[in-house]
């Protein structure tokens, strides 16, 4: 069989990244500055590959890649369909933005650890890509552990208090991964297969089997820990707030999203819609998510540390995504049916939270400002950074035409269609709570005067602009701009065919069999 070049990309995305990680390790001995260059170049190449993969998947069809030429039930298979390709592009885009940002901020924050930082960062990207492209459930577990381990180490890299945060994450994350492994074991014991597609063929007659059902519960619980779904979110606030900012952005924007992707993959590719309709587990998830949305927001209001506040906001946003996932089986509209709102919010949340965390990092970089109350007068001192923060915050609140607004509308429509009006109220309440905690920050930045600062004219104060370096500013502004631009793009429905293809794949939305 002859493979086209693009069909080699799924594996190359991972191998290139893996090789690059260790090249960085060696190159770092010779020249510390080369680390960033290698990392940046690798991720750029990966992103280009991912875009090609997405194009190929959309135009030609799903890519099946048999590692080593072994056919699926025995060999490992990488399967890239519309869902993976879409997530892969998001992962690598945000990774590219974060690595651009990290150039100056890591040189400033962790000058001793540049080499190990980039090595680990590259391994993190490897793991994330791996989870995304693989079609083998055990392979997925391995990649989950790869990115988790890199994440533990990266979180701890600031030392001090971050160590405790990292340790808590490690313990809880390992429990999550072990539950995932246990689920795999259960499935393996009744089917003897690890290939996702193969499993989905063997499983249907066994859906009534208690072992199969228990395995599903293990998957859900394990991945819920990884993705910080509400009652299992306890590791998240510490980890997010003490990690270096680009890692916080990755954690919040990508890592927990990839775990969500894993859950979606397991729910719809290993199990199927028929199984999910058998158990009320998705209804239960909806309620859990709704509680998460509200409680996450309420806890965010109680925080003074900006990054901690953003972390709790992530808990709430994961609730949005899980609510949308939970509703996916009961909606049939062509537009907001199925997984569309969930996948849409995965991208949107990556943009918004990425931007917010990078801005929080910029404040720390420039002036060691952690607490919201210290932000007085920043609006004038760092106009572009603060403008970016404002755009992203406005998106979080859901002011049109930002991305947050689009997700909100789609999720509300999904709630309406499935007849769960209570969640509409939850969504609206949550956007008000978002308003409360984000506006507090905006107000402090722009409106509150610093001590001793007199009522001055606009021109006299504009002279003390003190912005972050360009290599940090560009990523921040890019993300902020995308928050608005993507909102309009979503509204024009240009990217929706991708999500529609995902629904077609899983038989959701308008492809559902009534």
């Amino acid at each position, binding site marked *: *069989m*002859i*493979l*086209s*070049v693009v069909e*080699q990309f799924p*594996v*190359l995305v*991972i*191998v290139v990244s*893996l*090789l690059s*990680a*260790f*090249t960085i*390790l*060696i190159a770092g*001995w010779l020249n510390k500055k080369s680390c960033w260059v290698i990392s940046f170049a690798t991720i750029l190449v990966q992103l280009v590959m991912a875009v090609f993969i997405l194009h190929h998947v959309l135009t030609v069809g799903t890519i099946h*890649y*048999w*590692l*080593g*030429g072994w056919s699926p039930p025995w060999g*490992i298979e990488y399967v890239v369909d519309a869902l993976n390709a879409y997530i892969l592009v998001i992962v690598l885009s945000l990774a590219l933005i974060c690595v651009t940002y990290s150039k100056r901020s890591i040189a400033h924050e962790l000058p001793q650890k540049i080499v*190990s930082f980039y*090595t*680990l960062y590259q*391994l993190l990207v490897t*793991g994330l890509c*791996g989870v995304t492209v693989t079609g083998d459930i*055990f*392979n997925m577990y*391995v*990649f989950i*552990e*790869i990115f988790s*381990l*890199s994440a*533990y*180490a990266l979180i*701890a890299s600031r030392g001090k208090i971050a160590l405790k945060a990292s340790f808590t994450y490690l313990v809880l994350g390992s429990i999550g991964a072990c539950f995932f492994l246990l689920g795999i074991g259960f499935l393996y014991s009744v089917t003897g297969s690890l290939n996702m597609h193969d499993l989905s063929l063997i499983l249907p007659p066994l859906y009534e089997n208690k072992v199969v059902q228990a395995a599903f519960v293990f998957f859900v619980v394990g991945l819920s820990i990884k993705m910080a779904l509400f009652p299992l979110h306890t590791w998240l606030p510490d980890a997010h707030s003490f990690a270096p900012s680009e890692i916080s952005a990755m954690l919040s924007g990508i890592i927990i999203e990839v775990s969500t992707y894993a859950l979606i993959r397991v729910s719809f590719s290993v199990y199927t819609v028929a199984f999910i309709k058998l158990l009320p587990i998705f209804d239960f998830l909806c309620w859990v998510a709704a509680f998460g949305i509200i409680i996450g927001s309420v806890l965010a209001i109680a925080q003074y540390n900006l990054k901690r506040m953003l972390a709790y906001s992530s808990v709430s946003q994961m609730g949005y995504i899980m609510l949308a996932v939970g509703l996916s089986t009961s909606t049939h509209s062509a537009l907001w049916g199925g997984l569309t709102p969930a996948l849409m919010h995965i991208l949107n949340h990556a943009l918004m939270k990425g931007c917010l965390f990078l801005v929080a990092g910029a404040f720390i970089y420039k002036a060691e400002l952690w607490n919201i109350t210290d932000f007085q007068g920043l609006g004038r001192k760092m106009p572009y950074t603060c403008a970016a923060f404002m755009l992203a915050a406005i998106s979080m609140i859901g002011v049109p035409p930002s991305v947050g607004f689009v997700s909100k509308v789609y999720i509300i429509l999904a709630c309406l269609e499935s007849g769960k009006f209570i969640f509409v109220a939850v969504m609206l309440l949550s956007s008000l709570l978002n308003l409360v905690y984000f506006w507090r920050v905006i107000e402090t930045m722009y409106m509150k005067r610093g001590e001793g600062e007199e009522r001055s004219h606009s021109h006299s104060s504009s002279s003390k602009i003190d912005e972050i370096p360009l290599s940090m500013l560009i990523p921040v502004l890019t993300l902020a701009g995308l928050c608005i631009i993507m909102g309009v793009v979503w509204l024009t429905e240009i990217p929706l065919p991708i999500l529609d293809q995902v629904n077609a794949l899983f038989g959701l939305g308008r492809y559902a069999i009534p």
Partner: protein
Amino acid sequence: MNGKKGKIWEENVIIETITRLMVPFIQIYALYVMVGTEGAGGGFQGGVVFAASIVLFTVTFGISKGRKRLPESWNAALNSLGLYLYAGVGLLCIVLSLGAAQYLNYAALPLSQIMSPAHTRALMISDVVEVGIGLTVMSIFASIFFDLAWKGEGKKNKDKNKGDKEVQE
């Protein structure tokens, strides 16, 4: 190092001599586990045994001496080299077959025109790949040991890359 706390190990002629005798044998055994057998597998185990020999040496002669035998730069180089061996051969399959074969599909290597494809696979897996895995495992386990033992440095090491290698075997 550790000078201010005094010696944390004691020189003991018997132990040192026995260690001197043991280490080469352990290492040869490790190599045997790695490449000496017919079938696949053994890279990881061989690497661990090899690392054990280094650990034994270090425990006997002290960290500074152990570090001298396996400096950090060597460690990094070895562990990258192992990975290059493993991943590079895989990539070679794609490159040499001009994109016709999959990653890790050793049957696509030109070597298979001399021997049978099956034997090529066997050769690549049991020799080249195992050596790669072994090197990486050895150096990383050694560096974990050194980092944990070398108080004050506390660098976290990561040997996750082996994870996916093992699973692909």
